[in-house]
């Protein structure tokens, strides 16, 4: 479905991504991306979603090189994302913004998303008046409407408590599996990533250290050395 070939991004002399190769092909699976700060996780999200152009390499989405495609094109062709900093429409109600996006993408099945993300109690309230945890879920909901094939979630649990993080990941995992979506999640909460992800990629200094099942990644000495340390 999504193939990254020798993907490279530089900011001046800094090599943010260096020959990254990844393949996400199975639907209904969650692919976690972890790594220390500055590893290139968010840059990877930005490049795949079209926020930044890659300096080198190819992004192949369902057989097509999309390196030059706009973010609107990518969204309309099944690739969506949420943001590290909550990115919603503050003066619209929760329902208004989800309906707006869903109708533009031809998806009328928003009730399932509102139910799954437990947003029904705030759906008639303006987004800037609801709790932060609810705003995070609205951000995820906006990425989930439109029946995307691939959803990129950039630290969806940022700022949430452990309980909220677990609940959010449970909601996401349930929706992803039910709808046959492939999810790529960047997250600092290592426990949640190892618990909910089917495959994990570890980045360090813009390079892929390993991509494998959680149990393999957890035991990999390179990952322990670069990121996990005693947490493993």
């Amino acid at each position, binding site marked *: 479905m999504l193939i990254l070939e020798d993907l490279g991004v530089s900011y001046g002399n800094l090599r943010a991504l260096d020959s990254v190769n990844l393949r996400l092909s199975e639907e209904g699976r969650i692919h976690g991306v972890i790594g220390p700060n500055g590893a290139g996780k968010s840059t990877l999200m930005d490049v795949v*979603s079209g926020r930044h152009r890659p300096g080198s390499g190819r992004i192949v989405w369902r057989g097509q090189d999309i390196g030059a495609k*706009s*973010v*609107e094109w990518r*969204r*309309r062709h099944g690739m*969506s*994302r949420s*943001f590290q900093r909550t*990115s*919603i*429409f*503050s*003066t*619209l*109600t929760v*329902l*208004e*913004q989800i*309906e*707006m*996006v869903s*109708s*533009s*993408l031809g998806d*009328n099945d*928003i*009730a*399932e998303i*509102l*139910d799954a993300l437990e947003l*029904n*109690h705030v*759906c*008639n*309230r*303006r987004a*800037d*008046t609801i709790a932060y945890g609810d705003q995070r879920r609205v951000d995820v909901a*906006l990425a989930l409407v*439109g029946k995307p094939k691939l959803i990129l979630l950039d630290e969806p649990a940022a700022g949430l408590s452990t309980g909220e993080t677990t609940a959010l990941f449970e909601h996401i995992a349930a929706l992803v599996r039910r709808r046959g979506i492939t999810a790529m999640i960047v997250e600092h909460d290592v426990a949640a990533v190892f618990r909910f992800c089917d495959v994990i990629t570890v980045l360090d200094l813009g390079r892929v250290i390993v991509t494998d099942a959680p149990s393999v990644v957890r035991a990999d000495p390179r990952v322990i050395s670069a990121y996990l340390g005693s947490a493993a």
Partner: protein
Amino acid sequence: MTSGELQSSALMRPASGITKAPGGRIRRGWPFAALLLIFVAGLFVPAVVHSPFYQGLANDGLILGMLALATGFLMSQCNLVMFGVVMFYGGPAYLFAIANTNFDWSTGADVFAACFGTLVGAAAIGAAFVRAKPLPFAMLTLAVSQMLRQAVVITDFRPVTGGEDGLVIDLRDSFLGLTQADLSTPSKFWVVVWIATALVLVVVWAVVHSRFGRILRGIRDNEERMRFSGIGTYWPRLAAFVLAAGIASLAGILHVLNSAFASPELLDFSLAGNVIASVLIGGSAGLLGPVAGGVAFTLGLDQFAASGHLQLFTGVALVGIIAALPNGVEGFVRAALKRMTGNRTTRPNTDDAHADP
């Protein structure tokens, strides 16, 4: 609310996002009935205000209000301040006058040509400018309007534009059943400008409450998220810009029909300043605020001019009003009504500057 209820209610209705309370239709019907009553009563203003001078002042106030509405619409829906709105006011006035003096067309054809030309020009200017950030956008529109102001007084163009003297218009036939004498009579022209204002308000209200209006506010709130939601941001902003230009052009056409004169002053920055002041006085959050601001500003200017200290008193009044009513008169009234009704809506408008009109 269960998912079933959501599907039946949220998806089937026009997505206003407001949960209907029992009797809500009646409560929501009252404002419309009141507005209809105000509209009908407004038609008879000349029967109450007998002075032609004040009738004319009221006409000018509504035209300024219409111009302020165009500006306020773009401010509230797109966060764009059109400093150069006068180009779409004086521009069509000149186009009308040029068509009138150079071609043997009917008045209706002159009006059509002026409006069409303005909309085409607005589309071209908007295509270049709507991507700009708010401040550059404001200055770019101002620059174009002042270029136009300069162009109409260039000596080489005098045979067409009339130079500093402007163009006097002589209508060949009636327009909407009104002769030039009728259009110049304040009491008769009031009916025209009152109906036109009401129609513009209805159109803008419909746009603001449509899916298109919601998209505009979505772009205003978070343009990047809009694009990542698969919704382009360029064409909606361009359409909003052209709509605002269309409203301004209607105001310009009305002015020129009433005064039978197109002059360079219609393109002056001072007029644009009056428009911005009207928006600030009335408030840009709603639709009625800018119109009310235009009327209030026109009446205020007359009083201040009579005192002989126009600039001084205007400045003092503006500072006082903006300090006391940061969200304008309409924002103040909305807040007062909200306090009185105890905010029964499930949809709070905490940010009056961005309140839904």
